[in-house]
């Protein structure tokens, strides 16, 4: 997950504006009662059986983990992985309140509802305008006719560079059909409210003198009885952000294996083009799913990474010829001289209007393998959860791992400044490791951090090591001493996307 930009930076782009209150992904089932996404106390991982009862749990307000006896690190990792699965199930539960084990491939999920999550560009509006949580999405004019024709029952994704280029501009990912993988970033109401409260949706607002001394510190979720719980409205999980990756599904037969959405995708602006930006209607299949969640004792956030199990083989499977294709981003049997592994595509990387979402080089396909394999324990847990998901597409998704700050005392440390800063008063100045010993040290999603997989310090993907470097656009006034200025953005790159003038 690191890639430096992952959730945030990364994708930021894409999204679009559209929407509002909701697009309700595809149309299907009528939406009875609104299924809001409140959080629940996470059941204890060491005593809770993995069965169908977990399918109706809410989003965990915070993790519950137990070091147990014996292999402490493994016991704690299991607790966080259990938390991640509950989070995945809660976010992807049907928006209409039905059960996920009855979901169809295109059943809209809770996170896809604007009442639960907003796309980044619906917050970082042109001119840095403020907005309200209930505001309707502004549909780009290029997509408006199609949107109206579909009665708004379609997802709208407005592409920017982060929608097709991976973190640190390391390149796009091209599937086996020659299409770009597409990325999107979203935030929940807790993050939205904090941003609006401090005028952080505006570049000018971030650069204001009032914000020069602000330590960006998003709300943190807490379970009942935990310190900080009283500070949170009932059911509020604190800050949650999501980054997803999509695969274009042109062949109807493919669609039965993915969670899908009907989408209008607005091509990224190309200043060299004089033609109108194409807005193409596509069926998109979910291939990657990141969640970042800040909690009171994990103030460096908890980082969850899922992906479709048919994305890529593990490198060791390739070496032992144990691939079980076909894969979304790997061709079995292709000679390495013809299909070099984990290489970026040839340039130019930007989508071209005339090609739509197809890569310009019609013969190129990404040949990706997973460099760091899943652990056996994670695989075991995946199987247990997949087994309770019936015959739905959700059984095709797997947890890669969960990254969490393993130094407990460090992770819950509060800023002891005088006067005390507002809650949650996260201490961002810890040294030498403000990330509090991330476990596992490295974590990469093959679709979201494709080109930074591995185990090289500061080069390979680590959610916290990357996001810990995120900053805002705050500036130091001339009369403020350098040591008094504190530019960080609490592990999110989202604030970098605040605008001061129309750029899209």
């Amino acid at each position: 997950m690191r890639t430096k930009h992952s959730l945030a930076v990364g994708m930021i782009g894409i999204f679009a504006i559209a929407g509002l209150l909701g697009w309700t992904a595809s149309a299907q089932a009528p939406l009875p009662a609104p299924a809001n996404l409140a959080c629940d106390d996470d059941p204890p991982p060491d005593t809770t059986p993995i069965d169908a009862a977990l399918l109706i749990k809410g989003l965990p307000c915070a993790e519950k983990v137990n070091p147990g006896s014996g292999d402490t690190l493994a016991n704690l990792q299991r607790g966080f992985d259990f938390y991640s699965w509950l989070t995945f199930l809660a976010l992807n539960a049907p928006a209409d309140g039905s059960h996920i084990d009855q979901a169809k491939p295109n059943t809209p999920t809770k996170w896809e509802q604007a009442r639960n999550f907003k796309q980044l560009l619906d917050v970082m509006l042109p001119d840095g305008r403020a907005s309200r949580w209930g505001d309707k999405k502004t549909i780009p004019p290029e997509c408006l006719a199609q949107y109206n024709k579909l009665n708004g029952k379609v997802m709208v994704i407005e592409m920017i560079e982060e929608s097709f280029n991976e973190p640190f501009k390391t390149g796009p990912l091209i599937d086996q059909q020659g299409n770009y993988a597409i990325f999107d970033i979203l935030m929940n109401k807790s993050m939205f409210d904090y941003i609006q409260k401090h005028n952080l949706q505006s570049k000018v607002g971030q650069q204001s003198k009032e914000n020069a001394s602000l330590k960006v510190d998003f709300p943190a979720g807490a379970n009942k009885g935990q310190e900080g719980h009283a500070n949170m409205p009932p059911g509020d999980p604190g800050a949650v952000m999501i980054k997803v990756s999509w695969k274009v599904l042109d062949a109807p037969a493919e669609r039965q294996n993915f969670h899908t959405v009907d989408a209008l995708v607005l091509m990224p602006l190309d200043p060299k083009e004089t033609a109108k930006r194409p807005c193409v209607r596509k069926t998109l299949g979910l291939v990657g799913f990141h969640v970042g969640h800040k909690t009171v004792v994990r103030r460096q956030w908890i980082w969850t990474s899922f992906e479709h199990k048919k994305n890529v083989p593990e490198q060791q499977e390739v070496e032992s010829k144990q691939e079980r294709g076909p894969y979304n981003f790997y061709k079995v049997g292709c000679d390495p001289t013809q299909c070099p592994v984990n290489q970026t595509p040839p340039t130019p990387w930007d989508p071209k209007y005339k090609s739509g979402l197809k890569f310009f080089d019609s013969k190129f396909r990404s040949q990706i393998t997973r460099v760091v394999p899943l652990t056996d324990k994670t695989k075991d847990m995946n199987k247990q959860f997949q087994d309770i998901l019936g015959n739905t597409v959700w059984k095709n998704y797997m947890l890669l791992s969960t990254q969490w700050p393993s130094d407990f005392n460090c992770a819950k440390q509060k800023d002891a400044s005088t006067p005390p800063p507002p809650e949650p008063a996260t201490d961002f100045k810890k040294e030498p490791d403000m990330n509090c010993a991330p476990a596992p040290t490295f974590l990469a999603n093959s679709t979201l951090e494709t080109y930074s997989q591995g185990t090289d310090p500061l080069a390979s993907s680590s959610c916290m090591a990357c996001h810990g470097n995120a900053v805002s656009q705050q500036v130091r006034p001339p009369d403020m001493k350098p040591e008094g200025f504190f530019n960080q953005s609490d592990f999110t790159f989202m604030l970098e996307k605040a605008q001061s003038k129309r750029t899209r």
Partner: protein
Amino acid sequence: MGGSLPDKHPIAPNAIEDEPAGAVTRRTVLTGAAAVTAAASVGTALDTPAGAQSVDVNSQEHMVLFVLLSSALTGIPPEKLAPGGFKLQSPNPPAPTPPIDLSKSIPGFDPVDVKREYLTRANERCPAALEYLLQLVRKNLNASNRDEAIIAALQFDDDDKTKRPADVDAKYLARSIVLMWYLGAWYEPTELQALRKDLLKDPTRSPRFEVVSPKAYTQAWALRVAQAHPMGFSEMQFGYWTRPPNPRTDFI
């Protein structure tokens, strides 16, 4: 592990003066600082040469012993070398230690776990000397002056005729272990031993070394002790360079 051990020998009077001055570079300064620490830490022979070579890098007990050894040699608390719950356990807690029950003691669970790389490296290169050192720790496990006893046992001059080759091997492995912790680099014990004589002839002679791993490079203690970080790697907050470093106690 576990054989009988001889009584402590007196500390060799010139034990910390057996390192002739060499060329002064940034590397040699750091090396020298750590080497002096190691040099000050050698001293007694063990009756039983470590012949079994049975150190198990996956053994919790052996890891606890290695952390205690490393702490005694480096002066860094074991909880810092092995973060994540390092704990010495008594048979009947909360009864005070000693005695320590190694089988119940916890070597920490930090995800970085550089200590395992160091133990593995020492075991691969010098298994007999490593076992000697862990036996030394085991012998002094419940001593009230454990660290001092370990140091005293490894502190003697190479020319001390009462010492056997195994004693000398252990002394120089102890140095290598100190250098690993502080510099993240492996200095072959035989190289360190040769250096002692070579520097008398050629003060510019620099010891050969290899960085143990990228992980070890990021975890070296020398720069942390200096409230700094290695070039190219830092987990500190963006903009930390605009402020004075946090107190040294935050680092060590």
